[in-house]
């Protein structure tokens, strides 16, 4: 065995072995960043092809939901808003992270099976796929952010310094969807049942998350339990950033939400990596 592999660049030597945990998994992910970019770009440019209003869908959907919620919760049920903020603005400040989360979750959870032909034909770190679809959800988010600015102008609402912290909560929303998204897309490869679970979870989640109402409506003794829903923390954070001090964050609940997000992220990544190797065999 005298220096069989030493004649050419040593670093390009690749060893494929059963159960070999790749030491350079994350480096590999970085190496495939161009594929990541191009897959995200593909999803984006294909997303609204053959539709009439095209990208406007990213505005219409959250806007109409916001109108309905404002009418039902604000006018009919007469729930209180956060401080002085207009009810519509308060709903929309929650609508933004919620649609970011739900789009990212539902897109990423079917990302692997809708790209089955690629998975079974070519190698790349599979994690690229669900993460790339989250990018499209993020772009939709940016577009619907325009409405928020429009509404702020309409209501003459000036945000405080807190708005600068908004990116932190955007990242939090993305991570909150990435964890379950990774787990479910991996499960989806073998058990297509999970394809039907996600629309249900998303629909359900819209009502158990404080989207149409302020989380202050929830009785104090249930507040901590309610914060187990990771989106509670994210939505409260968004409201705090956008509406300013009128909508303070509930500290213990927020930390609990962070812990839940971290747990799901760990679960998603570890399950995904465990199942990743067999995707091509069973998809």
């Amino acid at each position, binding site marked *: 065995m005298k220096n069989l592999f030493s004649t050419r660049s040593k670093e390009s030597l690749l060893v*494929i072995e059963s159960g070999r945990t790749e030491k350079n998994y994350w480096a590999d992910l970085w190496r495939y960043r161009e594929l990541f970019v191009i897959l995200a770009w*593909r999803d984006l440019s294909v997303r609204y092809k053959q539709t009439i209003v095209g990208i406007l869908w990213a505005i219409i959907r959250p806007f109409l939901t916001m109108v309905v919620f404002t009418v039902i919760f604000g006018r009919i049920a007469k729930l209180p808003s956060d401080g002085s903020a207009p009810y519509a603005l308060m709903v929309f400040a929650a609508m933004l992270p919620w649609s970011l989360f739900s789009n990212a979750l539902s897109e990423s959870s079917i990302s692997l099976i809708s790209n089955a032909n690629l998975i079974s*034909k*070519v190698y790349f770190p599979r994690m690229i796929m669900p993460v790339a679809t989250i990018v499209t959800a993020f772009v939709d988010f940016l577009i619907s952010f325009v409405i928020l600015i429009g509404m702020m102008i309409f209501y003459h609402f000036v945000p405080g310094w807190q708005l600068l912290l908004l990116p932190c909560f955007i990242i939090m929303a993305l991570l909150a969807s990435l964890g379950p998204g990774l787990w479910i897309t991996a499960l989806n490869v*073998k058990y297509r049942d999970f394809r039907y679970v996600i629309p249900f979870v998303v629909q359900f989640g819209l009502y158990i998350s404080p989207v149409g109402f302020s989380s202050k409506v929830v009785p104090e003794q249930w507040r901590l339990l309610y914060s187990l829903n990771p989106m509670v923390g994210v939505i409260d954070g968004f409201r705090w950033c956008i509406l300013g001090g009128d909508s303070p964050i509930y500290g213990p609940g927020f930390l609990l939400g962070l812990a839940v997000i971290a747990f799901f992220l760990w679960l998603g990544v570890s399950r995904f990596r465990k199942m990743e190797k*067999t995707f091509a*065999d069973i998809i």
Partner: protein
Amino acid sequence: MNDIVIKAETLGKMYTIGHQGENGRYVALRDVLVQNARSFWSKTKDLAKGKPIIQGDTMEEVWALKDVCFEIHRGELVGIIGSNGAGKSTLLKILSRITEPSTGRVSIKGRVANLLEVGTGFHPELTGRENIYLNGTILGMTRAEIKRKFDEIVAFAETEKYLDTPVKRYSSGMYVRLAFAVAAHLEPEILVVDEVLSVGDIQFQKKCLGKMESVGKEGRTVLFVSHNLAAISNLCTRGIVLEKGAMAFDGEATRAIHYYTDAVVNSPKQDMEAPVADSDSVRFLSARIMDAGGAIVSSVGINNPFSIQMKFQVPKHIQGTLVPNCHFKTADGLYAFIVNAPDMKPLEPGIYTALCKVPGNLFNEGMYKVGLAVTEYRKTSLRVHFFATDFLTITVIDSVFDNPLRYGYGGPIPGVLRPYLEWTVDKTDMAQP
């Protein structure tokens, strides 16, 4: 030159397949319910543990690949041959990292690119230009690389005019051309090609083969899986035969093909029954290839004679002269020659056996296809009564060691024929330099 780029050691891949049990002889609703409940329970248990769930209640382990060891050197063109289910595609999948082996290990030096079934990764809604970038990146090119080769790719595909049209509007020919053009401009150290040549028309296949040949000449390693033996014998320098997941043969490509045709394709007998019949014309009954001793064979030594025997029936009186003839083609379909039986007289109704004797030292080594026909020659016209195209195959085998023409050279000698001709080499001038 001699460095190893791929090294596989005791490579194996096992799949677990579940079967429905045979124990359900008395199928009652209660039993079905109990069984379903039980399997539901075990599934949930597996799911909770994160183990893969196997459908069915008995499990079988199937080794798609077992104990495969080989070393491939830089610049080698390796053909992987085997019948369906022999493990060829599994091997390529492991090499291109799509799936993981169950046992053993492979060390690979250099970038591996997988020439996918043409057009995988194309998106119908995207334009030709966009798809070039998409497909190129999927195949492993960097953006800069694609940009550099973009014009070349477009020129190769001949689709300049439709670059900004969604590919779903393309004709299938354009689609395939574009897809192949992208793949053809890949520059990996190791190229893995699986059955791409089975799609597309003959012209396209030729283009593929030509490109692969040039890739090989550039010193890159090519692994090529195909059922097209001719393509393998033309392109590859080395052949690996897989049989039921195990290595059956590893060596020079034409030899591997011989091994494969003898052991796998022609395994029962080279004696075939006639396929079609027609009422008023001469009927083809059967044909076989025999060696000098009269035994049915599928391969023959290069200097041994063999004969082609064809049985046919003349059902009624036929006006013209009936002439049996043999059509010899190379494995890749090139016509070598056609021979007619000479000096034929008109034939009475009855069953005939024609024997065509082929001398030794006529064909080159390799596989040949033999078509059989009977043609009726009239004064001004001719009529083909039957033509069994490529009906028989014969593989001509050369022995490196006791062939007086080879002088110990072991490599392939190009050409359709390799006759043994009379030579004289005499000294005609006494002059000293």
